[in-house]
């Protein structure tokens, strides 16, 4: 017996610590706990009238698919290749140069090669070649083709939900392939089989029915805003009277409902109320909220183009019903991608609205001439530029700020400078993160496109690593303690990401900072910021 006992050195040297080198097609999918979201609640799928509503579990062998699921996918693929020229082009023209490979936050964070955007797209392209190209049909695997099997489908599902559609990879593609649209297309296909996740399907159903992700009904939505009105009065001594569903108002304001119910977005929501109150008192600006179009977010865009269109239409229908001139949009992420890239061809042109003009400054927002929807950062920057706001930036002096360019406003609409301009006018301490992590090269929060659930926390933390790594750098170099952003998913996702990677840093919306600095007509001396934390120099007054 004793002779058989291996020596420590033998034991150590015999451990093969390397994963086996295999072709990617030969590496089977391993649906790992913490890396996927729960399956869609069948009631939500049914409510939207989407196919194959049933209870199923991604880790089960049997996904309860329709018997002819391969045919459904093939026909769905074919139909979309004919309908969307872009998808056909994206399937054909990739030369696998690898420029996108290492640009994805999920690849960088997980180290899983199938999260290289090129390879994630290849999961679909391989089936495309098999089903729709002569070379693929003749040469099979030699031409990079493979037939659709249940294992391939599971691989699709697993990796299509390890992409936040942030579009960073597309920036580096020499052909301009929008890999985010490949994910959108892939998700649309698997939705034909009822393979959505619940963090998307249920908010979509709620939004379609009630007008927002949580299904907050109109009276409760108003109640929530009223709570903020009370809180603001306590802090500033000023009582606001927001308009709800006011017909004939000049401007309809729509923001993600996350701002209404989830901290720290709620402070940004208080900021909107204060900004509108200030503008009403000083300049007579007439803004209304809607308790029906009470959601800027569009999780339909993570489901299918048809569902995206349905949810987007509600905003414009409400604008028409109320008879406003144009729409002002809050700090949302993908709402802006939908507005800037898809709205016009889906539900536009919105020619029953006017080209947005800021009634206070006279600025005409030509960039929104067709969509009729202006971003709150553009609007606020314009007000500041014209000296229309009374500001005390020193009230934000205890905040050492950096700015996270939210993917969609940055890469989906090209808005880089307005939020920075606003922040630097309402606060005195601002430091940008390194150049290859901001502006058009910004890294995703790691939880976008409907992946901000709790059960996939490892996935979110891995996806959030590149962003958090850059925050950590400015935290260590400049003492940054506050990460500003203009997206409700960021405000929900980044506090958790920071708690894991850089716990010293908190998260704020842009308009929260504006409201802290904004001097309201008739306000009492403020001792705290909107969070109830003492203002700089007011630490004792607060006690």
């Amino acid at each position, binding site marked *: 017996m004793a002779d058989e006992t291996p020596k*420590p*050195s033998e034991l*150590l*040297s015999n451990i093969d*610590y*390397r*994963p086996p*080198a295999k072709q990617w097609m030969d590496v089977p999918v*391993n649906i*790992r706990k*913490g*890396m996927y979201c729960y399956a869609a609640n069948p009631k939500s799928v049914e409510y939207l009238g989407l196919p194959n509503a049933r209870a199923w579990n991604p880790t089960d062998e049997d996904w309860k698919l329709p018997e002819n699921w391969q045919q459904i996918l093939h026909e769905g693929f074919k139909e979309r290749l004919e309908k969307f020229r872009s998808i056909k082009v994206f399937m054909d023209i990739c030369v696998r140069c690898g420029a996108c*490979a*290492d640009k994805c936050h999920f*690849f*960088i*964070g*997980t*180290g*899983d*090669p199938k999260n*290289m955007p090129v390879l994630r797209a290849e999961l679909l392209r391989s089936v495309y070649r098999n089903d729709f190209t002569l070379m693929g049909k003749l040469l099979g695997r030699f031409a990079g083709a493979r037939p659709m099997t249940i294992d391939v489908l599971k691989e699709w599902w697993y990796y299509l939900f390890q992409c936040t559609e942030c579009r960073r990879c597309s920036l580096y593609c020499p052909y301009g392939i929008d890999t985010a649209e490949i994910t959108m297309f892939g998700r649309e296909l698997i939705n034909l089989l009822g393979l959505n996740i619940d963090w998307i399907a249920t908010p979509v159903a709620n939004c379609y029915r009630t007008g927002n992700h*949580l299904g907050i009904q109109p009276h*409760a939505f108003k*109640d*929530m805003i009223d*709570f903020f009105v009370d809180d603001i009065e306590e802090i500033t001594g000023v009582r606001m009277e927001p308009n709800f569903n006011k017909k004939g108002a000049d401007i309809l304001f729509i923001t993600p409902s996350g701002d209404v*119910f*989830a*901290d720290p977005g709620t402070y940004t929501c208080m900021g909107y109320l204060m900004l509108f109150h200030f503008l009403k008192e000083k300049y007579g600006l007439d803004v209304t909220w809607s308790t029906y179009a009470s959601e800027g977010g569009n999780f339909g865009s993570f489901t299918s183009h048809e569902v995206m269109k349905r949810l987007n239409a509600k905003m414009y229908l409400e604008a028409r019903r109320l008879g406003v001139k144009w729409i002002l949009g809050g700090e949302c992420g993908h709402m802006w991608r939908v507005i800037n890239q898809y709205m016009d061809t889906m539900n536009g042109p919105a020619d029953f609205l006017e080209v947005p003009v800021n009634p206070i400054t006279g600025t005409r927002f030509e960039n929104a001439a067709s969509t009729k929807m202006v971003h709150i950062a553009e609007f606020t920057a314009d007000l500041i530029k014209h000296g229309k706001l009374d500001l005390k930036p020193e009230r934000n002096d205890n905040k050492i700020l950096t700015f996270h360019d939210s993917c969609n406003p940055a890469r989906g609409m090209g808005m880089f400078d307005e939020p920075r301009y606003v922040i630097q006018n309402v606060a005195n301490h601002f430091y940008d993160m*390194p150049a*290859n*992590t901001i502006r058009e090269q910004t890294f995703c929060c790691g939880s976008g496109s409907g992946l901000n659930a*709790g*059960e996939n*926390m*490892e996935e979110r*933390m*891995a996806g959030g*690593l*590149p962003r958090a*790594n*850059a925050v950590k*750098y400015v935290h260590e170099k400049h003492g940054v303690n506050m990460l500003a952003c203009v997206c409700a998913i960021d405000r929900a996702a980044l506090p*958790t990401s920071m*708690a*894991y*990677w850089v716990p010293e840093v908190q998260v704020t919306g842009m308009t929260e900072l504006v409201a802290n600095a904004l001097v309201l007509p008739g306000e009492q001396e403020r001792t705290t910021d909107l969070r109830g934390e003492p203002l700089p120099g007011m630490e004792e007054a607060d006690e």
Partner: protein
Amino acid sequence: MSVMAPLGSQKEAILGRWLARVIDTYPPETARFLRSQKDPFANPVGHATRQSLTALIDLLVAGLDEAAARAALDPVIRVRAIQAFSPAQAVGFVFDLKVILRETLGTLPKAADELSLLDGRIDRLALIAFDIYMQCREKIYELKANEMKNTTYKAFARAGLIKDQDQGAGQ
């Protein structure tokens, strides 16, 4: 001739071999990237791994300061704790150093005593790594639970269903 002096002078060689083994715990395509991309913001995993391992070798020579060892190990373990590694795979790379030290310095005269001293330090490093790994895992569970709790609690509070918020929070 002791081991410590050559350990200092051969630091780069030892670090290189150790780093190679840690990087090779990733699939080959990923390992290539982790090795070649030098920008710390484009390659935070490769950067954190290199930084951690460099600091650990210095600590090994200088003697083991617990707090410094913890600070050095944290970035690399924090990353591996959320990646597709088993707990053993996530922290096991620390033991690789024993093999590498023997391969590099084992033939030196009187190496045995000092290698055994270093083995003790490496074992302690591994235990600290395990502590950090567990803290990271517990943090993940805590974050999951807190998100869920916050959503439910705040929704109830705002809907006016919780009358006394202080009491409600404790229950």
